[in-house]
């Protein structure tokens, strides 16, 4: 008996699942031309679905009969309140200026770090260092070798020949801290431009923030 009851409940559930969703659409005349006659045919035979339809119709009518609540106050906006809500033209201009300055700043930084403004004259720096060392070496004399006999400088020393003094040995350029810097910007003006863009971005941003439209906490008439 219990098993039969269980089966019946399952059948009833299946029956409900099949037909009940159509009832709502039927109430609103939203069933298709194919489905509507099908449902109407079923309703003519099924008392349970007829009851469901009546109950559903009563529910919808109860919802439609809910009266409207009165508003507690007017929700219109005064002129003074509207001024704080709408963005002023100066706000838009400040926004645009901040955005444009920031964009140019990003491009400038990108080009700078990418080496677009890099300096390629590394040789002149090394040549300056080499010239300085040559000047120093030409002015010196190697120490005179002492002869074991009388202590006088030996005339046969190759370092004392006029040719040796006149033509000093070539000097190998030594790497200095200056030459280690491989990319040095020689366009100092870009630094000023970047600083100016930073200043403009900050100033325009601050201006836009100060002029931003703000909604009051609650507008009460």
């Amino acid at each position, binding site marked *: 008996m219990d098993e039969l009851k269980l089966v019946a409940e399952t059948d009833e559930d299946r029956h409900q699942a099949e037909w009940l969703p159509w009832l*709502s659409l039927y109430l609103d005349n939203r069933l298709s031309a194919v489905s509507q006659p099908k449902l109407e045919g079923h309703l003519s035979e099924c008392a349970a679905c007829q009851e469901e339809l009546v109950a559903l119709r009563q*529910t919808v009518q*109860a919802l439609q*009969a809910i009266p*409207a609540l*009165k*508003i507690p106050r007017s929700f219109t*906006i005064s002129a003074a309140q509207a001024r704080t*809500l709408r963005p002023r033209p100066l706000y838009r201009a400040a926004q645009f200026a901040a955005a444009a300055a920031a964009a140019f700043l990003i491009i400038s930084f990108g080009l700078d770090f990418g080496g677009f403004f890099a300096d390629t004259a590394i040789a002149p720096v090394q040549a300056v260092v080499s010239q300085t060392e040559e000047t120093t070496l030409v002015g010196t004399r190697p120490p005179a070798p002492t002869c074991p006999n009388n202590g006088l400088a030996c005339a046969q020393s190759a370092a004392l020949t006029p040719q040796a003094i006149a033509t000093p040995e070539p000097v190998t350029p030594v790497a200095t801290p200056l030459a280690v810097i491989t990319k040095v910007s020689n366009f100092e003006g870009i630094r000023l431009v970047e600083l100016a863009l930073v200043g403009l971005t900050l100033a325009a941003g601050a201006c836009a923030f100060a002029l931003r439209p703000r909604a009051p906490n609650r507008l009460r008439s």
Partner: protein
Amino acid sequence: MQVIKLFNQKKTPIVLPEPLTLPEVEFPTDAGAAGPAEVEANVEIARQEKLVQSAQQGDLAAFNELVICYQQRVYNLSYRLLDDREAAADAAQDTFIHAYRALGQYRGGSFKSWLLRIATNLCYDQLRAKVRRPSTSLEAILEEAEESGGVALGYMEDSGSDPQDHAMRHEMVREVGLALQQLPYEQRLIVVLSDVQGLSYEEIVEVTNCSLGTVKSRLSRGRLKLREHLQKNRELSAEDMRP
């Protein structure tokens, strides 16, 4: 029957053509033409479109006229979704603030749907971030009203109705209101928009940004669940009344 023969001036008989038999022609009826209610609705829509255009150009008075048109609808929708008078008033005010600021983004279509969409989004945000405040829910208001003799419930009704009908109607409204609050938010929204606010399926699609199939499905399930809740509540109250 007397047959009359006609002759022209030249005395030749005039042969009259046989009377024409007109086929049965169905003249178009006025069924396709807009009735008075529809004409009035179209006029109102055109008036509101002009108000919206003026408001977009900065005319505050035009915007406030639109507020007056829709404030009751927006407030009632918010109340049915939030079940709190203060929260509903705040949501309604926020709706018009947002609408005023976003007028530049309105690109035509149904202004009503656009406004109600803002309202439903704000109500949803409020529900998600809800902080329990002293309740001004429907039940609390009705309890207060019962103590004060049913005065000032805040409904817009005619005062000339029968007291018994009045009481029965309030009881029914109370039951339906409580049952609505038991629905999941998505179903409650669709049921309120359709059956309380009277929007069509297509308007609900515009307001909720759901598909038509989703609207139909949620409405059907919402109504069925509401019917179940009402039936259950009545059975419970019938049991309470038994000695």
